[in-house]
């Protein structure tokens, strides 16, 4: 029966050890390819070069400033998306008429690649922060709304019925059953769309910007500074990893009642 236990819990130590080996493997393959000269440094610099470039970018080229400006754009666009999507998603989940009205609009918006909006938004808003924030909003809000809608409409019927027999009114069902039950799922959806947010802001910065990590990537590429490009990619990865952990950690704190998955 052992082979069927594919979702068996790992101990914390086992988990960390495996995660560590994954990272070591990646660095080993990279080192083998670059140090051996199998791949030219122009295409793949060694880990050491990338490390040195990262330090130099921090010290001499204000990398922190680029990181902060990208983070600022993401934060603003993400916040705006959350402010719109959470109430809208919940509303759609509990109101069949609203669902019928908004569903085609949102599905339509969701299937248009966000990148298609870049030229239009440059035309309308220029290449400043606002253009990036709005692009992120266009890319993230419909997606997040649909995720939240789905979570809310899957509220367990048993809880709703039990609440009614305990004297709840329809508005209590929304505030005291639907929302509390949906919160962990909403939190997790926010974690998922955070990754989408990064993609969108980076895309916007690569296409047209005067600052930010995407801008750093595209200018470094123009000057064939491949190590800088890889450094920027790594930093994005690390920030992503950190936000993901933050979301997971806070979920445990906010929703101690959840069953462990």
């Amino acid at each position: 029966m052992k082979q069927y236990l594919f979702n068996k819990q790992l101990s914390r130590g086992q988990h960390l050890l495996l995660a560590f080996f994954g990272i070591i493997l990646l660095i080993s393959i990279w080192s083998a390819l670059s140090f051996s000269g199998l791949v030219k440094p122009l295409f793949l610099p060694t880990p050491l070069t990338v490390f040195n470039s990262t330090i130099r970018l921090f010290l001499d080229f204000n990398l922190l400033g680029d990181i902060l400006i990208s983070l600022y754009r993401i934060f603003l666009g993400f916040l705006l998306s959350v402010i719109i999507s959470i109430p809208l998603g919940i509303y759609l989940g509990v109101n069949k008429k609203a669902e019928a009205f908004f569903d085609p609009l949102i599905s339509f918006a969701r299937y248009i690649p966000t990148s298609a909006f870049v030229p239009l938004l440059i035309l309308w808003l220029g290449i400043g922060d606002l253009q990036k924030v709005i692009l992120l909003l266009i890319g993230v809000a419909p997606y997040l709304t649909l995720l939240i809608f789905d979570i809310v409409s899957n509220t367990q019927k048993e809880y709703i019925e039990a609440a009614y027999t305990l004297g709840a009114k329809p508005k209590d069902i929304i505030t005291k059953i639907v929302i509390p039950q949906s919160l962990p799922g909403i939190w997790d959806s926010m974690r998922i769309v955070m990754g989408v947010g990064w993609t969108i802001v980076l895309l916007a910065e690569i296409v047209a910007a005067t600052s930010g990590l995407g801008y750093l990537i595209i200018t470094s590429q123009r000057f064939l500074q491949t190590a800088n490009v890889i450094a920027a990619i790594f930093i994005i990865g690390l920030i992503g990893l950190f936000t993901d952990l933050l979301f997971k950690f806070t979920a445990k704190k906010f929703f101690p009642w959840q069953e462990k998955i």
Partner: protein
Amino acid sequence: MLEIQNLSKTYGNGKQAKVIDDLSFEVGDKQFIAIVGPSGCGKTTLLKIIAGLQAPTTGDIILDNNSVTGPGQDRGMIFQAFTLFPWLTVKDNIGFGLKLQGVGQEEKEKIVAYYLQATNLVDFANFYPKDLSGGMQQRVAIARTLANNPKILLMDEPFGSLDSQTRSSMQEFLTKLWETEQKTILFVTHDVKEAIFLADKVILLDSSPTKIKKEYTIDFARPRVHDLKFSEKFFNLERTIIKDLESSSIELCK
């Protein structure tokens, strides 16, 4: 008093399925009535209609001269599925209905404390449902409903998902609780033994569509204890009811 008057329930529009047909009976105050019947005979539907969670096709439900038109806290319901709100602690689950009614904090805490005591859950007041066993969860569910002080308790196979040992201890727990609380209870089960052990009266339903087949008065003295289940009188009664039940199950198969 709860009166069920000429109740019928039909599902579907085109091809109709009549689940309940012209069902009438009464549940007197402080009576413990058990309903048994073959599975799929609309017992849950009946309770949900009384609770106001579903509308009858025809007929009326009248509780103390008031017609039932929707769900309300005067009819508490215990479900077979575990329905504790997982995001609330045991204490807050029990206080859920009181909070809805706007009962003051002090009064609420007093009532919650009383039911924690009555259900032997004092030590678990701050636990979340995920950390409780099935039997404990159902005890909390019963406490949560009783804290609301309903006129009648509707129980839909509340011990159906429990193992047989827990089930039997829950039955004893419920009789004790009922003897002190003196609530009107309408208890649906497919377990004849459980029905006889708990109830003052057992109503046997016939299936498809549901109507009353027979009624049995159960006059065992209270307080009732587990040993009662091994007495000859109990066994004979059980055999009679099971025979009647099986004859309707066989008819269903035809």
